[in-house]
């Protein structure tokens, strides 16, 4: 009979395994389930998800009130399901305008560190320049092309 400590360790191992699905199972899930989009500024994230036929946390919440705990639970579930997670990055225009940085997007990035199906779909050029060319202000892109 396992002791309390052993039980705890076993549970942790099981949780770990369920968060990192087997390669074959996750590949299968990646093919069948829609990818999800993350990034800064949810209206912008939603617009990009619509363009590519992906989902956002709003689809998962299905009308429930957003909370930090639910946000974390969503990321963990997407990882367990082996979903492709597409990151469109910071909203550099909003950062330049307001000086405000999303703490929640930062939390998502930390949770996804090392996740094999994470895809970065943005460029960063200096502190406040970059973004995703499909949704972000394109003057920045001329600037980037000029620099190269």
């Amino acid at each position, binding site marked *: 009979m396992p002791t309390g400590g052993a039980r705890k360790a076993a549970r942790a191992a099981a949780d770990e395994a369920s968060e990192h699905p087997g390669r074959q199972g996750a590949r299968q899930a990646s093919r069948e389930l829609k990818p999800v989009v993350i990034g800064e*500024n949810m209206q912008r994230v939603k617009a990009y998800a619509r363009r590519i036929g992906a989902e956002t946390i709003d689809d998962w*919440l299905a009308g429930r009130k*957003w909370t930090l705990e639910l946000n974390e639970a969503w990321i963990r579930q997407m990882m367990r399901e082996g979903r492709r997670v597409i990151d469109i990055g910071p909203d550099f225009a909003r950062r330049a305008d307001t000086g*405000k940085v999303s703490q929640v997007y930062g939390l998502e990035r930390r949770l996804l560190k090392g996740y094999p199906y994470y895809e970065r779909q943005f460029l960063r050029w200096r502190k406040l320049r970059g973004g995703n060319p499909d*949704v*972000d202000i394109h003057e920045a892109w001329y600037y980037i092309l000029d620099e190269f």
Partner: protein
Amino acid sequence: MEDEGTIEIFLEEYTAQMNCLVTEGFCESPLVDGQSTWSSITYKVADLDVAFEISLDARDFIVSTYITLFTEAKRPGVFYVSQGRVIRLFLEEILKQLGTQIPSVQEELKQWKADTGKHFKRIDRSLRALKMPDTEVVRELFRTDAHWVAHFLCQYGKEIIQYARNYWGL
């Protein structure tokens, strides 16, 4: 943030203070859109394809006010750009331009940032500690910001629209 949600507070505070745009016949009745993590209130300028859009990112308690090319901005899958054109301009950017012609705008802009900044700092501190901010602090932030946004739109609405018309060639 247990009893009253961020989105409900946002809608209450901004629609209450932005009413001047409708009562003066400058804008049509507001259009409200949103999901669990965001909400927006759009005031379309009467007889013109331009709107004022106040947008809340409910996860971060950040409110942005844009001047939009209305028809394009409402298309699904579009955000800052559409068909090679920028279709959302930040109110603050336009006010900075106006400030070069109207000196009082510069002072008012500084005051707006100072007034809202102190409330936002408290919210940001909570989020950094992975805690939901206090409802009353959120309400104070939205009320203060809504007061200033309403002031700018009602006071300088015509100049802002003229800037947008020139920008988009309307």
